[in-house]
């Protein structure tokens, strides 16, 4: 995390990949009745929160309490909101029907909706990095932007996504 806050992309990615299975178990343990894709939505909420709040971790403090505090806050929030929706009832039926798994068990539903709400270019940049694994230089070349502008656009897009998810929860 220290390296990540210093701008080391590879280290940050490794960290996120390492904590994701742990967080997924936490989310699934808490959200017993929710469907798998709802759990994945919540997990993505948590990851976005970790990303947008990463500067609130103090370099000299242990990482684990911070991570758990962030995750707990988001999980409680997310389940409070989703519990209010009708999804829970549907998932009860889903169990009984033993519905076939979706094409991708790691896919959340909310994220696609939200990417649709972003402006097309911002969504394209996020997809470029996420789905196609582009580098900043590749994205910049493809869209005819400077690398700095791509970085800023990605940063803003992720901030907006986090804000939109918040609003969805309200």
């Amino acid at each position, binding site marked *: 995390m220290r390296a990540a806050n210093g701008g080391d992309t590879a280290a940050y990615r490794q960290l996120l990949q390492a904590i994701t299975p742990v967080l997924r178990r936490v989310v699934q343990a808490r959200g017993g009745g929710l469907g798998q894709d709802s759990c994945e939505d919540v997990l993505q909420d948590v990851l976005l929160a970790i990303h947008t709040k990463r500067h609130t971790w103090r370099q000299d403090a242990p990482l684990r309490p911070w991570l758990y505090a962030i995750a707990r806050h988001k999980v409680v929030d997310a389940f409070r909101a989703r519990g209010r929706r009708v999804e829970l009832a549907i998932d009860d039926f889903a169990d009984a029907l033993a519905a076939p798994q979706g094409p991708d068990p790691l896919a959340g539903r909310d994220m696609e909706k939200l990417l649709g709400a972003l402006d097309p270019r911002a969504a394209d940049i996020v*997809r470029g990095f996420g789905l196609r694994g582009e580098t900043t230089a590749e994205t910049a070349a493809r869209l005819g932007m400077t690398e700095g502008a791509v970085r800023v656009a*990605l*940063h803003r897009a992720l901030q907006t996504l986090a804000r939109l998810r918040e609003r969805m929860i309200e």
Partner: protein
Amino acid sequence: MNTDDLIAALAADTLPQPGIAQRLVRSVPVALAVCVAAFVAFWGVRADLGAALASLAVLKMILPVLLAGLAGAVAIALAHPGVMAGRRWALLAVFAGMLVAAFVFQLQRGGLSGLVEAVAIPSLWVCLTSVPALGLPFLAAILWSLSTGAVLRPRLAGAVAGLAAGGASAAIYAFYCDQDAALFVLPAYGAAILSVALAGAICGPRVLRW
């Protein structure tokens, strides 16, 4: 978009977020400028400021500033999950306890009738409205700064932020207020500052959610 893709997109974003301290540095001077401008325009400095600064009345400025600093430190800790705020809370509690003790001591000397006499003056209402009015810019600045952090208890953090903002504005108001009796200052300033804390507690859950 699946979770691995999201991680890739997150990892690619290397721009740092502005920290709370950074935002405080940017916003508090603005709040202070607004506050001082409003103070000069609508309140103005008391006539005998020089004499007051040389007397015990200078505490009317020093103590609120101390309160603002201590409460601000607690508020910052509350926006950093995993940071133990115990020692900061203890300092704030000791400080508040000393003020309450001073009030009780004065109350015993002056008696209840003395308190009523000291407080039942028009200055009371000026104080109770001026301090919150001057505190609003500070409250906005502090809440805006905290909102970039990760506050887990927004109502509490809002209240503490209000305490800090109220302390700052009370210190400024003290340059106008020419009532120096402890039996007036302690309860009137205390109630005024607490009303800003109440405003912070009301705004907190709305402003500090994430």
